[in-house]
């Protein structure tokens, strides 16, 4: 997989689509929805963060499972570096969500502690922060890789329960749950979609790009110590 990532075309595509998102995303005509109004543009910046985070975590999960099956160190390197970038996107998504919520849902303290999905996201991010604390406290590399792979599989399931399953069962202020409409209802002329899907793609490829750089740095680090991990 790393060999294919050396190609240039998807990086160019990523930059072009990011420019498109941040340029056209600010000028695209919006459906004038009550309460949301112009803040609906945050759809291009907040939601793709979570999409990119989930996709990176899914890739990392696959590599964790592969590590447990095959036991090659390279899988562990890929999994943990992808999680680093995934957490970055998670934090960014949380911050943009806070900004958005402060304009549409009112005072931060009133919904931060009560909205199901917000709480779930906070818990999920905490679980993943604990992952890095866990990695930092084990010295032996083999043991660290195995234990953290097990923990990350555990964490992925719990995170998805927290942000995808529970808010659908309980009420949440977020769209798509508790009788709230999803964005497809507002997006009658598909203007939002024309920016939203490229934005998701751009954010995900940006995450892949950053994590591939991190992975290559880690591999170099191993090579410096004359350890063959391929």
């Amino acid at each position, binding site marked *: 997989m790393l060999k294919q990532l050396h190609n240039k075309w998807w990086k160019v595509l990523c930059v072009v689509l990011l420019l498109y998102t941040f340029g056209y995303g600010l000028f695209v005509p919006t459906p004038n929805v009550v309460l949301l109004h112009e803040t609906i543009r945050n759809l291009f910046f907040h939601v793709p963060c979570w999409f990119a985070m989930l996709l990176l975590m899914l890739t990392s999960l696959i590599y964790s499972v592969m590590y*447990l099956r095959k036991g090659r160190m390279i899988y562990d390197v890929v999994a943990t570096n992808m999680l680093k970038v995934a957490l970055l996107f998670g934090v960014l998504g949380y911050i943009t969500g806070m900004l958005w919520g402060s304009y549409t849902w009112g005072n931060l303290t009133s919904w931060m502690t009560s909205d199901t999905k917000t*709480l779930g996201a906070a*818990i999920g991010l*905490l*679980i993943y922060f*604990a992952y890095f*604390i*866990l990695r930092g*406290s*084990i*010295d032996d590399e083999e*043991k660290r890789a*195995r*234990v953290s*792979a*097990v*923990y990350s*599989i*555990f964490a992925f*399931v*719990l995170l998805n*329960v*927290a942000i995808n399953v*529970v808010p659908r*069962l309980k009420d949440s202020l977020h769209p798509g749950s508790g009788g709230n409409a999803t964005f497809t209802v507002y997006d009658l002329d598909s203007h939002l979609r024309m920016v939203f899907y490229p934005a998701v793609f751009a954010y995900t490829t940006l995450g892949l790009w950053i994590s591939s750089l991190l992975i290559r740095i880690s591999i170099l680090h191993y090579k410096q110590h004359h350890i063959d991990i391929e």
Partner: protein
Amino acid sequence: MISAIAGKASNSGTLMAILSFPMLIPVLIILIRITLKAIAANDGAANAQDLLYLTGLNILIIGMALILFPYLWRD
């Protein structure tokens, strides 16, 4: 399960607390809600749903632990 993970690390006492805290929050939230309803003397019908969530969550965690524990045990 968490203690098995934490036990592999060097300073396992502190790590145990850090790792288990986020995992315990959902369970605690549901338990607090059930307790609140119990104090408010509801008819119990509203509690059934929360109890269902609690059992679901527990089954999920135990199931994951059963699948993943062998990988930790093998040393």
